[in-house]
């Protein structure tokens, strides 16, 4: 039983990262009905950006005391800002002009954008895995045999805080309401005086910033990354968004944590473990979609952003 709960803890940490990435997929889909395939690569960029910041300020190992909080905050916020700006630029340069084009055109463009980002990262940091400094001391506590590490607390905590902030933003601010209105009816939103270009750019800014935060967290959690990291993580996060009901913010969070849990538990209990975990994850997706094509929260809470 301890093993099971141990995998639940591991799965939640994994799921926190997937959930943060899934939010970007689901927000962008909600507002312009585009599956932004470049989003997974923005997440990888987040790891590389935070790595660059840490190197720039000369951090290569564990940091203690108040400096730790400052450095973590600096790395997370810069990764979020840089990724956010990247997302806005991608939308402005690649997607905006195709907004009224047939749906296939922006989709292919998104795949192309993904290749561009991957190749740029390969040129920048090379084709091999790059180590990420172990900034955070990693004490762990045992609860009846279940080990919870500081990093896991950080991953889940950061994910939950970001999601809560996002919910408050979407439901309680004027700009958040403008985003929901634009997602529901673009023309009507314009007639309210909402500038939809700004609103769509804001959606990319926030979604990409969340991927940037996930990028930092994944660097800390795994201690390594490489240029292709976002391909699989992006695919799983996208799966999470679809599982929860694409376009649905709460669904993306739920889907992310569920995918993380399924992956961790499958790795533990299925003979052959890790090799089969992806098969299990995607089988779950197929099964859910057969019985609930709109995803878990796709109908009961049809709030898309």
């Amino acid at each position: 039983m301890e093993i099971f709960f141990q995998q639940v803890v591991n799965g939640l940490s994994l799921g926190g990262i997937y959930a943060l990435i899934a939010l970007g997929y689901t927000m962008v889909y909600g507002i312009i009905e585009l599956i932004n395939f470049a989003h997974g690569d923005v997440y990888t960029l987040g790891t590389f950006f935070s790595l660059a910041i840490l190197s720039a300020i000369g951090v290569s190992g564990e940091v203690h005391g108040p400096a730790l909080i400052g450095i973590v905050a600096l790395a997370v916020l810069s990764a979020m800002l840089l990724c956010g700006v990247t997302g806005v630029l991608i939308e402005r340069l690649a997607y905006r002009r195709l907004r009224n084009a047939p749906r296939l055109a922006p989709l292919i463009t998104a795949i192309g954008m993904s290749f561009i980002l991957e190749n740029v990262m390969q040129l920048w940091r090379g084709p091999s895995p790059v180590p990420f400094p172990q900034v955070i001391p990693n004490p762990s506590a045992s609860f009846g045999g279940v080990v919870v590490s500081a990093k896991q607390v950080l991953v889940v905590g950061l994910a939950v805080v970001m999601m809560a902030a996002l919910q408050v933003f979407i439901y309680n601010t004027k700009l958040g309401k403008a985003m929901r209105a634009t997602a529901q009816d673009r023309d009507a939103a314009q007639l309210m005086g909402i500038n939809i270009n700004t609103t769509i750019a804001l959606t990319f800014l926030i979604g990409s910033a969340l991927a940037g935060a996930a990028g930092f967290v994944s660097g800390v959690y795994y201690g390594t990354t490489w240029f292709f990291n976002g391909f699989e993580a992006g695919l799983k996060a996208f799966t999470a968004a679809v599982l929860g009901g694409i376009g649905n913010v709460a669904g993306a969070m739920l889907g992310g944590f569920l995918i993380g849990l399924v992956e961790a538990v499958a790795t533990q209990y299925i003979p052959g473990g890790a090799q089969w975990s992806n098969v299990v994850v995607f089988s779950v997706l197929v099964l859910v979609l057969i019985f609930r094509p709109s995803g878990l929260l796709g109908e009961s809470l049809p709030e898309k952003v």
Partner: protein
Amino acid sequence: MALLEVEGVDVAYGRIRALSRISLRVEQGEIVTLIGANGAGKTTTLRAISGLIRPLRGAIRFDGSDLLRLTPDQVVRRGIGHSPEGRRVFARMTVRENLELGAFTRDRASEVASDLKGVLTIFPRLGERLVQKAGTLSGGEQQMLAIGRALMSRPRLLMLDEPSLGLSPLLVQTIFEVIKRISASGTTVLLVEQNAHQALAIAQRGYVLEVGKIVHEDSAANLLASDAVRAAYLGGAA
């Protein structure tokens, strides 16, 4: 100088011409109605004024300044409210949120609050349903919400696209009463209607659109009396 002037406007959807050489004007304080059959181009005219579709040529001026290069949100800020065809309320948001979005361009919370009160005085039904999702409202209530939402921007010109469509005769009466009230309070109204009789009854002037062209233009009283208009839009020899 007229509040709104549309001059020689052409609009096409792809290769299909929707409006040719449309010219009309709306004076400060008037109710002007645009009548015509389905597909005549009434909705397209309003969409062109709002900037939702860009004319191929022509001029659209509001209060003397050119609207043609503005985006729809800028047109709203200039003082044009538009309650669109099919109501287009935000179905998954509450009545209150819909009304608040109507005031998106405005900054003074106290003014917005007093306008909200004003809208709820005009449409008491909305007051009873403030926390309800707009999608759960009846057709008539959604129409009230669409009009109320457009009023929340405190427009100088209110454009209403088929406000009576699909409503019971009793509700149609109510809506037309409301339009008169809105006009009496100083807002200029451009009213698109298929319900030509009722529209002409409250308007000062009217334009008749036929397949993208304005074919008649006169005072509402003359249009009501005109044989051609009666035959085409008012149910023959009524």
